[in-house]
């Protein structure tokens, strides 16, 4: 560890920079800034931060039903009797659940895949939680599966793979509408987005 971030840097500082640098979106410069910020904090605040980091790992688990990260099993959403249990919205990541929940327009359950099929990065269907989704469909009374993967190549490939896997289940399969974003401009829309917006046009 010593010397990686310069000969004058103490091994403990270098180690923290290195660990922070492993986090998504944190480059070497940001890792250095965060490290020196932490050094300047009062010891009590650093202790609270360290305890929070340990606690988030120790006190969270995957909901056995929807695979979302939670502090209880089943999670709050899955155990809420007011949710519609016959609808499952399939999302890529736990953060997608939060985003959809913020809209307040969906009252069904979720299924979190924890990734997407990305062959170039070596991620296949067996590496994400598709098997768990199929198991749910066998054991639960589900009427509709809403595919809410991102409209990227990987997200669409994952959706197409799931669609194929669900052909023999007696469920309605839908996916989120594709088209123009609110506040967007036709001039800047690419041809695929625009053609999908036309395909999905609604009576006004």
């Amino acid at each position: 560890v010593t010397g990686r971030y310069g000969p004058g840097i103490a091994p403990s500082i270098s180690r923290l920079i290195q660990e922070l640098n492993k986090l998504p979106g944190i480059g070497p410069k940001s890792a250095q800034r965060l490290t020196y910020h932490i050094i300047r904090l009062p010891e009590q605040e650093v202790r609270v931060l360290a305890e929070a980091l340990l606690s988030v790992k120790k006190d969270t688990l995957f909901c056995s039903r929807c695979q979302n990260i939670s502090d209880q099993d089943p999670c709050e959403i899955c155990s809420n009797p007011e949710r519609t249990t016959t609808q499952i919205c399939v999302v890529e990541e736990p953060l997608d659940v939060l985003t959809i929940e913020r809209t307040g327009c969906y009252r069904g359950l979720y299924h979190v895949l924890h990734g997407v099929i990305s062959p170039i990065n070596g991620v296949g269907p067996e590496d994400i939680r598709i098997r768990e989704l199929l198991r749910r469909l066998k054991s639960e009374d589900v009427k509709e599966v809403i595919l809410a993967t991102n409209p990227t190549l990987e997200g669409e490939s994952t959706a197409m793979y799931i669609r194929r896997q669900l052909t023999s289940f007696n469920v309605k399969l839908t996916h989120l509408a594709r088209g123009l974003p609110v506040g967007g401009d036709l001039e800047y829309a690419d041809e695929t987005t625009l053609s999908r917006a036309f395909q999905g046009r609604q009576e006004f």
Partner: protein
Amino acid sequence: MDSVNQAQVLESYAPLKADLDMVSHGIYVSELLDSFGVEGSANLTLYDLTCEALRLLGRKETNKGLLLRYFELQTLKLSGFLPELHVCVVCRNRPAVEMTFFSPDGGGLVCGDCRPEGMRLLPLVSGTVEMLRFLETTEPTHAARFSTSAEVQVQLKAVLAATVRYWLDREMRSAAFLDTARDALSQPSEGTDHA
């Protein structure tokens, strides 16, 4: 560091993205390009070839397997790794068609008389050498329309996959997904017994 200020979609290959099997083939082409392309070194011929391959993969009538073999061979050629397909890499004589082997490590064809100790050799059936030579010189549209026996297709896949693996020193990651996508389309899903 370069800075990208603007991006524009020149061609979205929409038909390619509408089907899992086509997508898996397109991803394979992209990974091959990414693996053999050299950063900071423009290769316009390889770029044009990739665009053409992606366009042809989006057509229902395309022989997608043979087009992938064509793209593999042409990518090797344009990257300077074309295997020797005309003479034996050991004795430099033209091998008899019925006694021809292929050595990914040796760099091409090996005749039945040579077969050096320790060299990994793939025996070739009649028609495979001719197909390799055809794919070396033909146009992508011809390769996409051509058909050949299943046995030759299997051999072409093995020969070119071994050559690609030799030069990359790793497996193509998207190759496994090609098989997964094909299986997903041909086999009943887990829910069959439930429905």
